[in-house]
């Protein structure tokens, strides 16, 4: 099967998020970049699906030229080809258009992707919509929040598992289909040294589609106000046990 994974270059999480002086973006001077955790699972899933059923994994990203680093990371995990859509904005409508146009081009050359995977939402901006917009534009079924994907050989549909508070819902979607996946779908592999070396040499394709801006425009970013409050220290070491149990009693949980 042919699988496409759309990934995004995002600042690596870890420390406190700083904002640039002009307030319009995240200050990434001290940060590395990574693939969002949801999308890393998407790449892993695609590689596993292809390992099981045969086929080909293409990774696609819309971002700055530096996003090549994330494409190569995905390639080092086992993806077969990478496409960089040069596109600067976080605008979800424009991004969706850029991706849709690129996918149409790719599909016109080599045929449809059976499955297109997105992260449920991007790790930095989190607009919760790009994958759905692309799926709608391509007129394909799409389900979000996916933590399990089953495809039978020669099957015309895919089973998509999603968690809710009560348990798991299983959706069936006809292929070709789109899924927006979540971390927990699998445990992504670490790239092997051979994988890295292979990815380093793999050719990448770059496209520059034209897009029009959408209706959502970021004005500025702000730090949320930190709530001022006091921490009550109940004690030190094992001696604190009594105070803790008093607290548990007070909260009515013991």
């Amino acid at each position, binding site marked *: 099967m042919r699988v496409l994974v759309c990934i995004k270059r995002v600042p690596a999480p870890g420390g406190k998020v700083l904002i640039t002086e002009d307030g319009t973006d995240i200050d990434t001077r001290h940060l590395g970049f990574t693939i969002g955790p949801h999308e890393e699972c998407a790449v892993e899933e695609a590689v596993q699906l292809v390992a099981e059923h045969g086929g080909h994994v293409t990774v696609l990203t819309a971002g700055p030229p530096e996003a090549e680093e994330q494409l190569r990371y995905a390639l080092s995990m086992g993806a077969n080809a990478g496409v960089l859509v040069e596109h600067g904005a976080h605008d979800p409508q424009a991004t969706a258009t850029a991706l849709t146009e690129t996918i149409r081009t790719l599909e016109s050359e080599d045929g449809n992707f059976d499955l297109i995977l997105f992260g449920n939402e991007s790790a930095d901006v*989190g607009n919760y919509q790009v994958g759905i917009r692309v799926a709608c534009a391509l007129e394909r079924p799409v389900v979000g929040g996916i933590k399990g994907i089953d495809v039978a050989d020669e099957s015309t549909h895919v*089973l998509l598992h999603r968690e809710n508070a009560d348990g798991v819902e299983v959706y069936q979607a006809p292929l070709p289909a789109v899924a927006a996946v979540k971390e927990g779908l699998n445990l992504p592999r670490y790239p092997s040294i051979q994988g890295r070396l292979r990815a380093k040499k793999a050719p990448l394709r770059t496209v520059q589609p034209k897009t029009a801006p959408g209706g959502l425009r970021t004005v500025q970013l702000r730090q949320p106000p930190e709530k001022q409050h006091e921490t009550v220290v109940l004690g030190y070491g094992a001696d604190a046990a009594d105070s803790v149990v008093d607290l548990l009693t007070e909260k009515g949980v013991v």
Partner: protein
Amino acid sequence: MLLVLVEDDSGAVSGGSQEALTLAHGLATDLNVPVHAAAFGTRGEFAATLGAYGVSTLHLLEGPFADAYSPECWGAALAELVRHIGAIGVIAAASEWGNEVLAHASARTGEAFASNCVTVDAGQQWSLTRVRGGGMLLEDAELAGAVKFVSLTPGAVEPAELPIPQQITTDSFVPESTDTLVHSTIVDRKSRGAGVALSTARVVVSGGRGVGSAEGFESLEELAELLGGAVGCSRVATNSGWRPHSDQVGLTGTKIAADLYIACGISGATQHWVGCMGAKSILAINTDPEAPLVTRADYAVIGDVHQVLPAILERARARKQVQGVA
């Protein structure tokens, strides 16, 4: 008019929808337009509640498609209604469901959608603030378009009913586009079974780097069982293979809403904090009195989890026994 997408919570209007209704009423007052509501299926019983929040018309989206959730069909149906009634804004709670349906509907109408907003000011453009990364950052943004789609972060608005309920009419809308749509279908449901769900547990006992190993979680499990709670963990614990991902509390894991969150040996990176900040009280057990989670917690014990937890277990069991006897 403004349209509020109403979410069903066990047969009632969900709390998040009530917040969305409150926001919509305020915006509608500023814009001098009425508020309508939309719900899927036969939900006539919502009318009274919706009237109390100032809704003048409830549109029930009906048809075979409405029997079981399908994101594509429900999104398309909502889009069709929006066009049909000429709504200028659509508001829903930023639940997974709300975000998904609004994303579909906005995509189908070709309009912009701002998810996870905390404040909205209506005008020609809407000025809004949305949260990024589960609350790590705030983004001020402008939303333009003939129809504005907005989802509201839970807890951002205090729900407020009107002193005098609005007269409400209910009509039925049967969309056409759903018949031919390529879409997914729910084919199976598996309930969670025994055990307390992390997202709804009253008490969560959670462990991080300080727990040190998979075996180290045994005492956390004992405490969770004693308190009738669930076990959670930080990303470190998942990545180290000590716990399954389904236990992870945080930005990319589960966001909890417990009465008490007991964080054992978790220093509290921001990505973790946004997953547990919904807890009413937080007790942090950590060797480092300066760890971020300790300074943000309501209560703290400074010490090694491996010494503190067994002592708590022992005392708590003793306390329970005494209560049992009494």
